[in-house]
């Protein structure tokens, strides 16, 4: 199969995946208990007859068919529909929050990777005391994100970037140190070391080409980890970002926002995964 066909197939698969995610999110929210309830029904000023009428109208308005039509219309219009809780177009809610979250994600992933690489490299060549070196990262892995965030607030030190950095570093360190250790102890590297190649040359010529594929997979995994951690971090630190919006949409059964958030998250993960596997295919070709 040529490269173009592989590319087309991957894109088609990703689009299908996004469609299934959107359909899944819609079904999940539509059939959730309490989705059809209207807060006006609790208002005593409305007579019983009016309340029944509201209920009937709400049920008719929220049938799967009308939801899909409304969603598609919103997407065609470009505003992604209207938020159920805030009563504003979804794009107006998402646009300012994306900037906040992307900045937080970029900083967290960058610092996390730097910390993981700087600590995993010595750990991979270490002969003794490796377990002691691993200890802080195992401790970090054993700490729930929400707990880390709460402790930061209580200690009045650090913030969302620190928590995200530590979380990414802990996950990546474990993987990186194992991958680098395997590479460092491989036969061809031992030979290179015996021939007197310097560390910089060894890294550039032997280690990096060998671990590049796994590093790309790790990069995708880092994005997924960071996206998941974004929700408790933004909720606990009260950061007006994408994660906080996702949490609020879930809690309030805000379908248009939830579909947009799900699609964006799935899109980011699928894109990262496509770039990672695409690079592999190109290398193989």
């Amino acid at each position, binding site marked *: 199969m040529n490269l173009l066909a592989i590319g087309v197939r991957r894109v088609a698969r990703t689009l299908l995946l996004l469609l299934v995610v959107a359909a899944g999110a819609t079904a999940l929210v539509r059939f959730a208990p309490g989705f059809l309830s209207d807060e006006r029904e609790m208002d005593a000023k409305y007579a019983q007859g009016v309340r029944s009428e509201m209920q009937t109208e709400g049920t008719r308005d929220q049938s799967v068919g009308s939801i899909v039509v409304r969603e598609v219309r919103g997407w065609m219009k470009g505003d992604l529909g209207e938020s159920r809780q805030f009563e504003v177009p979804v794009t107006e809610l998402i646009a300012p929050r994306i900037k906040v979250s992307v900045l937080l994600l970029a900083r967290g992933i960058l610092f996390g990777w730097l910390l993981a690489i700087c600590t995993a490299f010595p750990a991979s060549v270490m002969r003794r005391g490796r377990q002691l070196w691993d200890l802080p990262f195992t401790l970090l892995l054993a700490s729930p994100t929400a707990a880390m965030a709460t402790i930061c607030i209580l200690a009045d030190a650090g913030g969302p970037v620190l928590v995200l950095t530590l979380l990414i570093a802990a996950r990546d360190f474990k993987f990186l140190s194992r991958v680098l250790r395997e590479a460092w102890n491989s036969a061809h590297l031992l030979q290179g070391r015996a021939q007197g190649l310097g560390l910089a040359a060894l890294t550039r010529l032997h280690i990096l080409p060998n671990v590049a594929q796994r590093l790309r997979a790790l990069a995708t995994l880092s994005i*997924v980890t960071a996206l998941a951690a974004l929700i408790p971090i933004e909720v606990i630190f009260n950061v007006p970002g994408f994660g906080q919006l996702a949490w609020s949409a879930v809690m309030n059964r805000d379908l248009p926002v939830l579909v947009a958030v799900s699609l964006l998250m799935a899109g980011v993960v699928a894109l990262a995964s496509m770039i990672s596997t695409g690079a592999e295919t190109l290398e193989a070709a």
Partner: protein
Amino acid sequence: MKKLASYGVLLLIVVAATLVLRLTPIDYAAQDRDSTLAPSTAQHWTGTDELGRDRTVRVAAALLIGLAGATIAAVITTSIAAGFGLIAAFSHSAVADVLMFISDVFLSLPWLFLLMMARAMLPLTASPVQTAILTFLCLAALGWPACARVIYRGSVALRSSEWLIHGRACGLKTSQLIRLHLLPHLRPLLLPQFLICIPVFIVAEANLGSLGLGIGEPLPSWGAMLLELDNSALLAQSHWMYLPIALLVIVLFLLESLTSEEQNHA
């Protein structure tokens, strides 16, 4: 040696928690409104919470509920993953493609977001026990895709092994091949996957609880105890409020160490 020590300490903690629940006459939900946020006393070893409930009993119950729930959920999720992976590996390639696509759909959304979405869409006004069951069932139902992919790859690698071809040539049925030959060979993959799930599920329950979607009160849970830490005014009154988080980190640390050991052996 390290593995044995981790298992030993974990067992010791579980036995201690069980003894606390067995020997203490106080119920985890019993409120003593006259001694709210009480310090350490002979009656309440680690004091009481803001509703006057014994903290030692609640922490012990949370530990056992969390561990038991996560272990059961891990058994379910590993079984689903094993079934899914094996079916995909031993079916027609079209079936395998569909099954792997389904796992990709689950993996395309960040785990906590997916979990939060699924949990929030289930009844929130259920009884505490029902919320606990729902929470752990959610974890079990959504935790299998990554594990299934690992088992699928492992099974595909074993599919063309000589002993399997020999078994098939001897007339063994697929079910017999799986039970007698494949599953024992997949054990080094299944055990670490099962062990990985336990701390992941405990952390997920704690994170869900801190977002208000975990186990309902008055049933004690790690998530609810993390929520207690939000009130810094109360923290200044009693440092025993840090006990649950400290114990949670110790338990998770032991589980992480065990998982790493098993992965290294595999």
